[in-house]
């Protein structure tokens, strides 16, 4: 998976204007070459170790496990990576590709700002010009990351169209790419969009699951019973899930943003109340009205606040290989506080959705069962947002 045209069963594909087809085909061809080039692989592995900080620990959350009183919970600590989230696995892979392609300018979209920071970071290291598109609303709720990107030398362009969040940032990045395609590489930040992005982004994050699988076998001498990860576009989830797909005994759950509950325009849970459609390059499940117009979405976490889900997740959903559920804003904020106080780990609000689901299911599982939760990012960026929701306070820095 996918096939040569980027189809995961009926999902995925290359639904883009003709202006982008040549660039996507060039990228697909170059990625295939790079994937099979030992020198590329070696350079990426070296950088993942020395610069990004891999492997990340698989940490047994003993106190949290005891408090919840059920299955053993392990945390895959992607939050410990350089820049603070899993996003840099993909950004690093793609920038090496961009250099192979001879591109001199890098663009990206960002929601929570984690992908923007990761992209600005690898672009700084590569000495390439970098432009990040970010929704105005997201810029306000993720000020820390905006400042980080600017210190890293990136230009952060506010996007004010529509609801001014991730979807609009993707539109603007695509428009930039259409216009500057000859010298620019677009580092798309999630397992979404036109082929080859969903496949390529997955491949660059696959290391998460490969490490977790090895680590749990070393530690417990058996595979886990359940994997849990949050799903916006779905990059951290597919990164964790993919290495376990053939292990039939391992269950997997993707957790979408339930926002204020499954009410139209107040959530971002595509498998709840979504429909089949085509958006921003891919055929998948998305939130649209009966006229095919994309609906507003809401989540306390900017990174999950997106109207469509990655095509491979849609496929795994149909196959019954993974289950998809949701956690609400309140449940995520509760998990955010719980993990912080009990384990001393402040998780990203995105990851808090996965943790919230663990809090629901762990108590119902036997104590000899094992859960791995992907802590895809750290929560420093979210403290202002959490303070506003939890304490009703506006923090001033």
């Amino acid at each position: 998976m996918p096939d040569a045209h980027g189809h995961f069963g009926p999902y995925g594909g290359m639904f883009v204007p003709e202006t982008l087809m040549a660039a996507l085909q060039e990228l697909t061809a170059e990625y295939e070459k790079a994937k099979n080039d030992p020198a590329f692989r070696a350079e990426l592995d070296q950088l993942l170790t020395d610069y990004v900080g891999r492997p990340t620990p698989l940490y047994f959350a003993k106190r949290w496990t005891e408090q919840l009183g059920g299955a053993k919970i392990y945390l895959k600590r992607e939050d410990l990576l350089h820049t603070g989230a899993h996003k840099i696995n993909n950004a690093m892979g793609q920038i090496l590709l961009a250099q192979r392609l001879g591109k001199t300018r890098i663009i990206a979209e960002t929601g929570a700002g984690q992908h923007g920071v990761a992209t600005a970071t690898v672009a700084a290291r590569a000495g390439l010009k970098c432009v990040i598109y970010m929704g105005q609303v997201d810029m306000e709720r993720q000020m820390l990351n905006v400042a980080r990107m600017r210190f890293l030398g990136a230009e952060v362009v506010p996007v004010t169209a529509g609801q001014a969040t991730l979807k609009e940032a993707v539109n603007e990045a695509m428009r930039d790419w259409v216009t500057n395609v000859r010298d620019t590489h677009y580092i798309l930040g999630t397992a979404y969009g036109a082929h080859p992005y969903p496949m390529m982004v997955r491949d660059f994050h696959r290391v998460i699951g490969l490490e977790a699988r090895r680590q749990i076998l070393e530690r417990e001498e058996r595979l886990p019973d359940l994997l849990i990860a949050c799903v916006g576009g779905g990059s951290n989830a597919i990164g964790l899930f993919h290495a376990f797909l053939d292990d039939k005994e391992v269950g997997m759950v993707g957790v979408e943003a339930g926002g204020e509950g499954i009410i139209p325009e107040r959530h971002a849970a595509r498998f709840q109340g979504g429909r089949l459609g085509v958006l921003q390059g891919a055929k998948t499940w998305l939130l649209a009205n009966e006229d095919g117009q994309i609906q507003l979405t809401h989540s306390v976490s900017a990174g999950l606040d997106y109207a469509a889900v990655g095509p491979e997740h849609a496929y795994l959903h149909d196959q019954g290989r993974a289950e998809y559920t949701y956690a609400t804003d309140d449940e995520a904020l509760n998990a955010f506080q719980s993990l912080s106080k009990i384990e001393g780990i402040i998780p990203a609000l995105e990851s808090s959705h996965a943790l919230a689901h663990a809090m629901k299911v762990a108590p119902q599982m036997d104590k000899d069962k094992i859960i791995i939760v992907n802590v895809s990012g750290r929560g420093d960026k979210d403290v202002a947002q959490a303070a506003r929701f939890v304490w009703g306070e506006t923090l001033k820095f």
Partner: protein
Amino acid sequence: MNRIDECFAGLRAAGKKGFVAYIAAGDPDLPTTREIVLTLARCGADVIELGVPFSDPQADGIVNQMAAERALKAGTTLPKVLAFIKELRQETQVPLVLFTYLNPVYTYGFEAFHRDAAAAGADGVLILDLPPDEAPLNDELTAGDGLKRIRLIAPTTPESRIKLITEQAEGFIYYVSREGVTGAQSSLATGISDQLQKIQAATSTPIAVGFGISTPIQASTVARMADGVVVGSAIVKLIEQHGTQSDLSDRLTAFVKPLVDAVKAV
């Protein structure tokens, strides 16, 4: 015979070039769109492209994006546009092309859309984010005859794809004259003629050139090289500024007539 084919056959027989106008259906509302279409037809537009609004028009620049937003705010939907065309056909036989994105069509039902649009009196369709590669790979993306499938070719399209696209092209080919999104520009992209020659070598299907054309001089330059000239954002911009005013038709005529004349003088 389909109105588009008839139109370009007639133009070729007369040694003339075509003028294609793009507007957003429902901007500022459908009754005004009726007035605009009739005005454009009176000005001598050979084909009119009607944009069906989509919330996320990735291939469009800011002018067309804002027009789509206004149209959506006015309650414009695909079924309403089809009903609108049906009524419009009582008044004009100008060839009409629906210009849209896949999701509204997909949600309506791909096959049903083609059937209903043709029945309403539309002549062609251009779905911006549906490249010719995808339709054969998706069972539900097959449609019967009735609407001409207009295809895009870009400056970046390699020769191997030109072949693929021209083989499937119907009605006319829309050549995107520059890299980028829709929108008027003060200067035209260079290198148009090289790519046009490659397309002309591959097909006898008429070629209309668009993206960034807004003056009679630009229109005349492009008309010399192609079968037709598309002007979109510049007209949409005028509608944005004067769409709700009573002198809209006069203003449109004053802007569009010189463009048409420039094309017809070639």
